[in-house]
């Protein structure tokens, strides 16, 4: 990661205005959004959107041609090009041919994508943004920090300073007054403008219509008052059918701003009369700029299902800390990373793709049903393909990939680490052989790893057998979790096997784009875990479970290693996470918990991979409640804890504040214990609590339940 980039992060996380505004907004957003979607089957709705947008993405050429034909039949001029330079030239030519002096614009990301304003201004044409947020940042000489709320990073005081200069009058920071000032100042600009430029939220091929949505009403003026109207539309905005406009409009405002509908929606089909009685000179530019290439890419085609609601930004735990500027100038957040990699160039996404912690929050809310985290992983993989793995990481993977060497080093570390041990924690854990930073203590490497303890565990002989996949953290840092798991399964009449040649699940390599290494890890583990005939392969680490159940398959698929797929699928079918299996055993009456226990308050933290990749959230809660705990839910229980594997090592400046929020939310429940199903989260949160000094116990559900089985 470049220094400049690290500095921009530093500036952002230390900008109290920015983080304050974003935090406030994102907290309110979640419940407002839920309310806006009340009574609507979101899954059904986004299924339809994904389908119609995906159809459009597969038929960009046909739809563009149909749109052109329809719009031209209505009298609009349609210009299609793939080249941003041609777009700029076309607009300038129309302006110059018509002696245009001033232009008013309503918000359009496509014009920002091609840096239209500076180009026109250089040619001597005045360009005025009219969306209030865009106008503010235009006055401030900045770039938008959010796709829907461009000036969310600015305070009312900063805005009043800007406006005061504009109107030559000392204004207070009274917001309604500032808004009035903007209205009064911009009204003459609207009335004087010779040309209006808009974007388009949707373009309908069947009818040649464009759809514009605003809350302020500026798009209505931009498309009504000036005699010329140019709409710049990226071809990903095309849909086939007019009726489908309603489908998209059902989701877009709800997802964007938690509104049922924006104040104004205009559906424009060809030129309309001007105030002076003449007809509007209407131009629509359909811009490709690599969108067709994207559509032809089997992986990235789905990114064209985006309807630009920005909800992926609003729920992102990273975005709410750093805001948009860290991401770049135009498209921000998760989807912005993907669009930047394409519309700009892959290299430009090198730093920002690293911001994604893979928590999956965006994927859950995306109305276009885009697997944003997966696409970011794909960017990572392609970057690694293009540029290779950095040397240090290469060394690490070489180690991780060699089980004997890796495990040997971990053992050595347990000895080497001991001098630094303070109580249960040490300051340096060579788990991924990297330096760690402050904000949290890390566990000592266990003196005796689980794999060594296992042979001494006495188990009853049972007919049914399960293989335990420990993962590095339980094996080498938290062996007691593994022991607890065996105790529980034994009670249910299941004998636990521990195939010794299991190795790292490959997640560290995969999350860093090193798919070859991950594939080799996958192959080793499949061989080890399928050697004996077992009913289940159980893991108490959700990241490992996801690897066994999903990632091995997708890695083989993306590397074209199809011959390995049948075995990977076999393993996936047997794999189950701890809480799901135990819940099943309890429901089947094979396992009982002590009755009538009163264990007091507990709060539960949802691990990202468990909740969103494995869709497991109720099982551990039901088990803990059944055991006698009284569940006190924390605020944002399913927001990431900031661990993200090696993420916390690479971006501690982001990971640390995310952890602090989590600790605060845990403490506010007043529960003396917090439970979770992931050893990685335990490591992060226990370390944080330790530094914080709060007397709150941080436990894996497996440990808590082992105490309560009969």
């Amino acid at each position: 990661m470049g220094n400049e980039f690290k500095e921009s992060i530093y500036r952002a996380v230390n900008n109290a205005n920015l983080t304050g505004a974003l935090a406030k907004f994102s907290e309110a957003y979640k419940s407002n959004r839920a309310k806006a979607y009340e009574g609507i089957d979101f899954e059904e709705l986004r299924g339809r959107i994904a389908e119609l947008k995906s159809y459009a993405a597969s038929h960009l050429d046909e739809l563009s041609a149909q749109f052109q034909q329809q719009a031209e039949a209505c009298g609009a001029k349609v210009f299609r090009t793939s080249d941003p330079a041609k777009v700029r030239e076309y607009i300038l030519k129309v302006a110059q041919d018509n002696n245009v002096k001033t232009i008013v614009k309503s918000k359009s990301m496509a014009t920002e994508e091609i840096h239209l304003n500076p180009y026109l201004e250089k040619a001597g044409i005045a360009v005025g943004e009219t969306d209030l947020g865009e106008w503010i940042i235009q006055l401030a000489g900045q770039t938008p920090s959010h796709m829907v709320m461009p000036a969310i990073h600015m305070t009312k005081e900063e805005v009043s300073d800007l406006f005061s200069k504009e109107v030559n009058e000392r204004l207070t920071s009274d917001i309604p007054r500032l808004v009035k000032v903007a209205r009064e100042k911009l009204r003459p600009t609207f009335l004087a403008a010779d040309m209006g430029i808009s974007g388009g939220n949707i373009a309908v091929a069947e009818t040649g219509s464009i759809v514009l949505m605003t809350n302020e009403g500026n798009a209505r003026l931009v498309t009504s008052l000036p005699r010329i109207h140019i709409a710049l539309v990226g071809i990903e905005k095309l849909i086939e059918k007019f009726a489908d406009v309603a489908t998209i409009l059902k989701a877009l405002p709800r997802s964007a701003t938690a509104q049922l509908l924006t104040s104004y929606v205009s559906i424009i089909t060809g030129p309309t009369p001007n105030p002076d009685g003449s007809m509007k000179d209407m131009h629509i530019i359909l811009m490709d700029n690599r969108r067709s290439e994207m559509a032809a890419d089997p992986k990235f085609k789905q990114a064209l299902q985006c309807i630009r609601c920005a909800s992926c930004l609003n729920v992102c735990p990273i975005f709410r800390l750093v805001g948009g500027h860290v991401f770049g100038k135009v498209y921000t957040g998760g989807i912005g990373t993907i669009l930047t990699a394409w519309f700009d160039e892959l290299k430009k996404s090198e730093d920002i793709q690293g911001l994604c912690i893979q928590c999956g929050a965006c994927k859950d809310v995306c109305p276009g049903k885009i697997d944003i985290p997966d696409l970011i992983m794909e960017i990572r993989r392609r970057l690694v393909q293009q540029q290779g793995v950095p040397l240090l990481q290469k060394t690490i993977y070489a180690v991780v990939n060699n089980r004997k060497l890796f495990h040997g080093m971990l053992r050595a570390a347990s000895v080497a680490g001991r001098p630094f041990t303070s109580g249960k924690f040490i300051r340096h854990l060579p788990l991924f052989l990297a330096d760690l930073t402050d904000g949290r203590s890390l566990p000592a490497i266990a003196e005796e790893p689980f794999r060594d303890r296992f042979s001494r565990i006495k188990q009853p002989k049972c007919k049914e057998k399960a293989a335990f996949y420990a993962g590095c953290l339980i094996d080498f840092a938290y062996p007691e979790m593994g022991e607890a798991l065996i105790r529980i399964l034994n009670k249910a009449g299941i004998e636990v096997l521990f195939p010794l040649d299991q190795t790292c699940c490959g997640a560290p390599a995969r999350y860093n784009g090193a798919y070859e290494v991950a594939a080799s890890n996958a192959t080793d583990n499949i061989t080890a875990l399928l050697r004996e005939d077992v009913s289940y392969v159980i893991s108490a680490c959700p990241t490992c479970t996801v690897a066994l159940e999903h990632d091995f398959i997708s890695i083989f698929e993306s590397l074209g290693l199809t011959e390995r797929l049948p075995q990977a699928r076999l393993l996936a079918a047997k794999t189950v996470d701890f809480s799901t299996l135990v819940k099943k055993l309890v429901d089947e009456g094979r396992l009982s918990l002590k009755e009538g226990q009163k264990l007091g308050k507990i709060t539960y933290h949802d691990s990202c991979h468990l909740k969103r990749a494995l869709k497991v959230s109720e099982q551990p809660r039901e088990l803990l409640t059944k055991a006698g705990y009284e569940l006190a839910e924390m605020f944002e229980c399913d927001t990431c804890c900031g661990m993200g594997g090696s993420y916390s090592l690479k971006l501690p400046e982001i990971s640390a504040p995310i952890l602090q929020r989590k600790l605060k939310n845990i403490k506010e429940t007043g529960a003396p214990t917090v439970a979770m199903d992931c050893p990685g989260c335990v490591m992060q949160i226990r370390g944080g609590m330790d530094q914080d000094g709060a007397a709150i116990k941080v436990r894996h559900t497996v440990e808590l339940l082992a105490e309560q089985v009969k």
Partner: protein
Amino acid sequence: MYEQFKTRAEAVSAEVCRFTTKSEALEYLIGFLRREGVADTPQASALWADCSFLEGLDRDTLRQVAGVKFDVTREGASQARFGISQMEWALADTGSLAQNSTAIEQRLVSSLASIHIALVPTSGLLPDMPSLLVRVRPQDCRYLAMITGPSRTADIERVLTIGVHGPDRLIIVFVDELGGTN
């Protein structure tokens, strides 16, 4: 449907009322304009765009009684405080109004004035947007405008503020006599 519409529209700060007859509606309208200080001076005048509500009414009397003008120009609209127009449809599930706004006059009075008074035939109530979109042919309805509450922004510190570029008040007047009884 009317009740649902009213709830939804009021939730986004629109003001909603309903009358059985045109003359009741007219009486309310004139009273409203007077209360709000309509006058033939800049930023106080009222501009009424052509619509079926006006059929059979004596415009001269209206001019005298309420200081209303009927010749909609861009200059006139930018001077007007009140804009009056008739919207054809109302969407119950979002509290929105919709109109074929191809004629520029319709847009001028509803976008430049600071108070927009929208007359709506009660029969124009529809359940939702899909039922509107099957009714219009975009080729014959070049500018389909939907309006949901007054103009708003939250661009400064996320504080919801009413009235940026469009009207800061939206008064919706349903008139049963204009057609139907929904």
